[in-house]
């Protein structure tokens, strides 16, 4: 084989390669790859050219080899350059019908949600939020609140004792916080206290030995029963909507006088009567009253100067009414299928 013949072949391959490369579009990377195999591959045109070299004399072989090598380098360079610009564009149409990916999120417990809703309403009215211990003494839980020892009026608060001898117990309501606040500060003030309470009740659909309460107390000169009605009516309509009817009826608590029980029209049957409201159309939601003068005397307040009102309500009960939860046990079972509903 002649050197010229090989040179001619090299030129042919070079021209063909360039021509073909020119025909490859910018969005045809697969064609570019095929082109690479055809020329630069193991059985490609370049290697075919190299295969011809043994037919030449040694001087000619050197020259031809250099030419083929140059061609190989230039094709490789061209390929590398083109590789970056020849990219398959994504198809612009995407099937959007598939469901989105569920994000991992946290949720608040319904007790937190209700507590926050309640505190927001009261803090809007200028109430502060205070706390008190869960392990209490007989004095704060009962005596200071004018709850007589060894009287049937104490029966509603069936108590867990940590030490009956030392009069240490688990608070049965958040009311002892009232006393602790009043021992520390002078009126005027308005506060709410939120927290866990304990009563010796067996567990069933409506009773739990542990539950949460919100307590409220407002003391100032000139606070009266109509203010109690005003503040609590505002609270209930904020919480349950303007259409709810609110009813105040007489009740009895040793630490308030006059005392009242507040009910609202049943939000499940809209007042028509259903099992939740025992067919009365109304559900009891909280107890309240004007602070008993004996309670004021116990903390050294002048009963002629100051009057005030107090109220207390069960958070689980409110959550049951608000969310339609059917059983108080759900609150402490912590079934994520339940909690996650309220995020």
């Amino acid at each position, binding site marked *: 084989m002649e050197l010229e013949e090989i040179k001619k072949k090299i030129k042919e391959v070079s021209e063909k390669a360039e021509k073909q490369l020119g025909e490859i579009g910018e969005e045809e990377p697969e064609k570019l790859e095929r082109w690479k195999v055809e020329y630069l591959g193991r059985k490609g045109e370049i290697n075919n050219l190299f295969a011809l070299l043994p037919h030449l004399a040694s001087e000619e072989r050197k020259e031809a080899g250099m030419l083929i090598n140059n061609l190989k380098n230039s094709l490789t360079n061209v390929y590398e350059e083109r590789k970056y610009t020849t990219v398959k564009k994504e198809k612009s149409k995407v099937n959007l019908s598939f469901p989105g990916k569920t994000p991992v999120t946290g949720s*608040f417990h319904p007790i*937190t949600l209700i507590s926050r809703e309640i505190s927001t309403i009261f803090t809007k009215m200028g109430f502060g939020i205070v706390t008190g211990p869960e392990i209490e003494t007989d004095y704060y839980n009962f005596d200071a609140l004018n709850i007589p020892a060894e009287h049937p009026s104490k029966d509603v608060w069936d108590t867990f004792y*940590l030490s009956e001898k030392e009069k240490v117990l688990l608070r049965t309501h958040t009311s002892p916080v009232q006393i602790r606040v009043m021992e520390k500060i002078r009126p005027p003030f308005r506060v709410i206290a939120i927290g866990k309470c304990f009563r010796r009740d067996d567990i069933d659909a409506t009773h739990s030995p542990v539950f949460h309460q919100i307590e409220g107390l407002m003391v100032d000169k000139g606070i009266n029963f109509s203010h109690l009605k*005003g503040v609590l009516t505002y609270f209930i309509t904020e919480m349950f909507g303007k259409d709810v009817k609110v009813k105040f009826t*007489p009740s009895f608590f040793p630490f308030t006088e006059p005392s009242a029980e507040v009910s609202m029209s049943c939000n499940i049957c809209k007042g028509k009567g259903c099992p939740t409201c025992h067919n009365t159309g109304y559900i009891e939601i909280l107890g309240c009253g004007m602070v008993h003068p004996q309670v004021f005397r116990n903390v050294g307040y002048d009963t002629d100067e100051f009057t005030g009102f107090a109220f207390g309500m069960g958070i689980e009960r409110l959550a049951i009414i608000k969310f339609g939860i059917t059983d108080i046990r759900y609150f402490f079972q912590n079934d994520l299928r339940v909690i996650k509903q309220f995020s």
Partner: protein
Amino acid sequence: MRYSYRLISEYINGLISPEELIRYLEILGLNPSVVVKSKDDIVFELETPANRGDLLCLLGVAREILPFTNASLKIPRLTFEETSTRITPVKIEDENDCIYYSCRIVEKISVEKTGLSLKEKIEKLGYRTCLNVVDISNYVMAETGQPLHIFDLDKIDGYVEVRRARKGECLVTIDGKKREIDENVLVIADSKKAIAIAGIMGGQNSEVTADTKNILIESAVFNPVVVRRGSKKIGLATEASARFEKGISIDTCKIGMARAALLIKEICRGDIGPLSESGSKKKFSHPVVKFNMERVNKLSGIEVEEKFVMDLLTRLSFKVKKNKKFFIVSPPFYRNDIKEDVDIVEEILKYRQYETIPANIPFASIKNTPSSPEIATLEKIRDICVWLGFTEVVHMGLTSMDNVSFNREIIPAEIENPISSNLKFLRTSLIPEILETIRFNIYHSTRNFNLFEIGKVYYKEKGSFREETRVSFMSINSGNFFTLKGKIENLFDKLHLKNLQFKEEPGVFATENNLAIYLDDVPIGNIFILSDEIKERFDLKREEIYGSEINLENIIGKVSFITFFKEPPKYPSSRRDFSFFFPEDIEWKEIENTILSLNLPVEKIEFFDFYKRDAIPNNIISISFSVFFRSATGTLENEDVVKFSKKIIETICLKMKGQLRGADGET
């Protein structure tokens, strides 16, 4: 107790309809609930307040609704003729225990089954009908509120005494149960034996039977506290004890006795003997309550007419006097709940009706009402926990002995009167209850989740009870230990708590893989890989669980939510990635401190990978991290960054026995 419209109407002169009666009771807050409604009657129950024992009778309810009507009270007949002179002597051991005791003999009575008209009444009241004498005593209690007892006179030896039971004494009560009684229990006894538990239940040994010929009627006033203690002691509460505990006046006691004697004479015939009595001869001392209209209006927020108050209290049988400014009133004998002016105000508002009082928003002084400082912090932490993907759980905090036995150094608080053994202790950690919740959710096919709880734990220390607020985290089949650690670091970061240290120490829930958290050198909690042993205990063997518990008491005062604005950097940063081989037990903090000690313009060091592969020799791990360089005064030149990197590589290789695996990257 049960009440009936017809039976109440017997004590009212005038006509009210059943609907009116029910409505009045509703207005008064007594929440009537109808039990039986028939053509001509309604039987209902009431929720009577604990301080209103006087409402536990038909007469009491009639008295209570009168002010709504023009009707008057029809007081039942109380007079009868004594036709015998026989008496049983009465002794009271201690007048503190028994304020007043009276009894009366009725001889030669005919004990029979109760006749139709009384039987009907008794059944409406919800009692089982029985012998006429017994039914009469029940009816009189329902009518007047006075519990009575009737003994078979022929079974009593000599006299009747009210005394404390003696140690080791026993009595079979009429319900057939043998009661062990002691000096805490008050009894009625004859010269030889106890014959009744005072105010609670009679004894079988003196019970009236169909063969009874002569009876002794008892009507007494026992000390409410003594009856209450006795009732608790022997575990027996009756309609009688419930009334005594609320307090009964001697006047009621006398009315009850008269009614019983009269009805027995009418129905069972026989000869009534004279009253035998002992104890307080004093009449009920009427408390005097002084108030003025100003006080009424100040408490109620409405203008109440003086005439309304005057009429109401008169209709309620209060004695009312009025001078220029003040009302001076005293309640009727049965109202032991009226003690001071506010009690009168409640009466006024009840009958004025709560519904008619307007709802007003108070004009209140604007004064910064103090909130407890921890509230804001705890709520912020709760928010951050949820942002970090944790779901909140809330547990009772009452738990079993097993669940408080993880940490032997803590003395748990124990409930003396628990409702069950698995709710006998107060939790000493939030973790065990959360582990039970994890198991519950895994059983219900929720497999990957993150939980947190903020709540109190309790323990005994130096003889007193303590409570402590904590937060706990649990990560279940979601990421690895460092996922949880990262979240907790992020929490502390958001709370602006800086001086934090982690130290490997054995913990309660992981002996091996436990990291103690220190804040300002005080231990505040742990992050751990839950030990296999505890996993097994909670049947969670197959789950990957990481946990953490942090005491918030020391944190609350140190948390800050104040953020000062920082100008964003003006000049770009340069990043270099490094990979080194290190001995397996290398402490990351050491690497960080070594680099920081070089005083280079290092903005931050970010760890991003570590691995240990078969190809790498034993006891050696590969650690990769990025270092960000930034100068506040200008853009860093490439040569500078190369110089800094070299310095880092040199130092680490020289000082820390690190071996360079690779370094590159530029930003």
